[in-house]
């Protein structure tokens, strides 16, 4: 698969534009789509096509001139969507599309499943010339061809309805001016064809130099083969679009290993907040989770949760008023940081471990990777005081500051029976908010505990059997009769920590330098310039017992697809890598947990395991994330104790 894209990256995208007269010069080669492929395609189904984004909707006209929604035309089929214009004279442009679509249509005549599941759509970007009547004349080519293999021609009523569609598909079309500057002598555009799945997600984008019917057919067949897997699987294992729409790294790098990658950075203003009744999650935990253990002296209350929520998003809780808890435990990134292996704190200071998720930390009896804390009430002071996290010099400093901030006046008193902000109440408030971030009722829960046989895809069901059987994962990531925490709340040596302590690394490392472009870098080169991994011996640092070397806490696997990268040092980027790690038997060392051993999993079993883990995403994730978006971000302002008056210029 990668090899495939690598090949394309070598040939540049052909840009079909006018401009300099080329008629005398040597002509462009004819696109490969007209001939036979000169390389062997990987077998359909042997590779992945992770979603590249959502295929936009828009208003279009069919050949009868009726207004339709583009999505409506997609129906529930796989769609190959091409942007064309009928008066195109560039052989490697629209005629190439026609040629390739014709080949595919011919295949659809032979293959009944393909005919039923796939649809070809040519959408014109020249509404002035390509009227519905005009496109009907094109459609007539297939009037006699029977129903097998639908090829539909669409246009729009005007440039006004067309332009948003072009923008959404990133189709840049330049209307060329005539020499005298008057409008529309023609168009220049970059040929792009989109493969869209029934969930309206773009799965591949083809440009002229790799538009070939064999490739397109292999891709469609790959998606058909992997149908029950596609919902949850993707290469980086970070995102089941089905379950959580809102969980996403800020700069979504999925598909970056392909040349077709395009930036999908999310604009801040797209974050729509919606407050949730959080206490409900605390008092009525979702399916598959037990009642929340709360300390006797800190029962949940709306006031405490609201106060804790306010504190969690307040940047003034750090020494220089810049860093909140939520900046490492990022709500829309699974309450962790998808983009960092190990955390980065105040002023860019390195933290040696990966940020764990806060989801379901209500149930944790051991906190931190080495289990050095046992209550959320206590735990908060760790990051508040760590010089490389929030950097506060003392507990008193934090409390004094909060007491002086106007917005907090009366809040602690109201939540804690008249008690002021103190080491205890601040911890209690933060703990209360975090306790409500429980997330269950996942597809797995509905299947296993809710007895809904259809809740879990067949692939995920197979994965469950590997998880509970051959893989032996349940030994540590536990599943009980009535609930499943997917952690035994204990510490184990998997060899993960041993590996980095001993500097065990592959000789060469594959590094992506641009979308779809990799280089292999020698270990020696990396060691020369790279930061040495921080010393970390795990549980030993807490107990000083030699047997506890490289033991780390078993993390819960709930919402696991949302919380990449994995392990205490974030060194595994995808669930696939985690499975490969376990399959190889971890990293052997004297203290390796005996349950970690080579598993001899088949490729299918590995995929199924990932599918199973993809089914553990809670149904309330988006509710919790939207609630986080609605939370006030505490920012320094006038009147705050650390406000610098110099920024206020008085004008007389």
């Amino acid at each position, binding site marked *: 698969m990668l090899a495939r894209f690598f090949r394309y990256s070598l040939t540049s995208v052909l840009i*079909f*534009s*006018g*401009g300099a*007269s*080329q*008629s*005398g010069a040597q*002509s*462009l*080669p*004819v696109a490969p789509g*007209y*001939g036979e492929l000169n390389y062997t395609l990987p077998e359909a189904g042997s590779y992945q096509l992770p979603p590249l984004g959502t295929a936009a909707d828009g208003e279009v006209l069919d050949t009868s001139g009726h207004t339709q929604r583009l999505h409506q035309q997609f129906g529930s089929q796989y769609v190959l969507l091409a942007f064309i214009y*009928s*008066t*195109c*004279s*560039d*052989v*490697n*442009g*629209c*005629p*190439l*599309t*026609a*040629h390739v679509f*014709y080949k595919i249509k011919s295949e659809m005549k032979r293959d009944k499943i393909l005919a039923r599941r796939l649809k070809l759509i040519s959408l014109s970007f020249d509404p*002035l*010339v390509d*009227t519905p*009547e*005009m496109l009907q*004349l*094109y459609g*007539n*080519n297939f*009037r*006699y*061809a029977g129903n097998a293999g639908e090829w539909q021609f669409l246009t729009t009523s005007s440039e006004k309805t067309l332009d948003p569609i072009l923008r959404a598909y990133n189709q840049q079309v330049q209307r*060329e001016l*005539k*020499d005298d500057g008057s409008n*529309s*002598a*023609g*168009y*220049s*555009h970059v040929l792009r064809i989109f493969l869209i799945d029934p969930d309206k997600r773009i799965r591949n984008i083809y440009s002229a130099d790799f538009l070939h019917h064999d490739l397109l057919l292999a891709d469609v067949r790959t998606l058909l083969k992997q149908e029950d897997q596609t919902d949850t699987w993707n290469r980086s294992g970070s995102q089941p679009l089905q379950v959580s729409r809102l969980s996403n790294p800020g700069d979504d790098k999925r598909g970056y290993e392909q040349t077709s990658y395009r930036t999908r950075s999310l604009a801040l203003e797209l974050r729509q907040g919606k407050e949730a009744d959080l206490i409900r999650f605390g008092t009525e935990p979702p399916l598959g989770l037990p009642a929340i253990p709360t300390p006797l002296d800190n029962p949940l209350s709306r006031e405490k949760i609201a106060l804790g929520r306010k504190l969690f998003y307040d940047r003034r809780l750090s020494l220089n008023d810049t860093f909140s808890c939520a900046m490492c435990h990022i709500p829309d990134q699974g309450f962790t940081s998808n983009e960092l292996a190990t955390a980065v704190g105040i002023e860019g200071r390195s933290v040696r471990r990966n940020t764990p998720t806060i989801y379901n930390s209500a149930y944790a009896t051991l906190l931190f990777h080495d289990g050095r804390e046992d209550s959320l009430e206590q735990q908060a002071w760790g990051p508040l005081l760590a010089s490389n996290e929030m950097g506060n010099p003392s507990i008193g400093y934090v409390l004094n500051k909060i007491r002086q901030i106007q917005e907090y006046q009366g809040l602690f008193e109201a939540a804690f029976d008249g008690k002021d902000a103190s080491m205890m109440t601040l911890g209690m408030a933060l703990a209360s908010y975090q306790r409500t971030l429980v997330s269950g009722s996942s597809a797995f829960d509905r299947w296993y505990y809710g007895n809904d046989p259809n809740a879990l895809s067949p692939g995920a069901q197979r994965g469950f059997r590997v998880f509970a059987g051959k893989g032996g994962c349940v030994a540590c990531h536990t599943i009980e009769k009535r609930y499943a925490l997917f952690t035994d709340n204990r510490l184990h040596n998997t060899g993960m920590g041993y590996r980095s302590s001993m500097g065990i690394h592959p000789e060469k490392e594959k590094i992506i330098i641009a979308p779809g472009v990799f280089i292999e870098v020698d270990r020696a080169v990396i060691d020369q310039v790279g930061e040495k991994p921080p010393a970390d011996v795990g549980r030993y640092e807490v107990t000083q017992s030699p047997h506890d070397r490289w033991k780390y806490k078993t993390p819960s696997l709930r919402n696991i697809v949302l919380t990449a990268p994995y392990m205490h040092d974030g060194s595994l980027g995808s669930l696939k890598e985690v499975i490969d790690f376990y399959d190889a038997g971890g990293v052997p060392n004297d203290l390796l947990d005996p349950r970690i051993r080579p598993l001899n999993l088949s490729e299918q079993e590995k995929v199924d395991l990932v599918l199973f883990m993809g089914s553990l995403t809670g149904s309330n994730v988006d509710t919790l994330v939207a609630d986080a978006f609605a939370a006030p971000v505490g920012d320094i302002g006038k009147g705050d104790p650390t406000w610098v008056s110099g920024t206020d210029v008085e004008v007389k």
Partner: protein
Amino acid sequence: MALSRSGRCLILSSWLCLGSHSIWAVEAMSGNFALTDQDGQRFQLDQLKGKVVLLFFGYTFCPDICPTELTNLSRVLDTLDGESVQGVFVTVDPDRDTPEVLKDYTDYFNRRLIGLTGSPAQIDRVTQKYRVKFRKLPVPGGSYSMNHPSNLYLIDRTGKLSTIVPYGLPPEHVVDVVRHLLAENL
């Protein structure tokens, strides 16, 4: 399809637009027109009523694509030999494509092909009718090539434009559609 030599006349996707869009939007496509054939005779499209017409545009100096297209069309015409079918080639380069030049050309490719030319104004009217945009591109040495799309227009026996076959579809497809058109409107 023999496309190893690419169409120099078609590399560019831009051309001079000969009619304004608003005119196109009102005027119906297709319909009768009059030009001059390769024998210097006046020719009217209506003369061909009762036959299925395969109409396409090009110019004889066209180095690559037009010959490819013509070869394909020849194959189609040969396959349909003996049936009520007529191939018609309209030049977009009337300055150079005189009736004599066209005669050589059609004789060479397929004697059953009618080649048409006319005054620049006449040609403009016909290309506008069929929404054919083309433009002159100078080439070094003082000559020029014509940039134009290579669609094939199928006109049914009643003289109505029935189907536009985009360039890129194989001759078998054209034969298939023409056979169906022949079966209609008997």
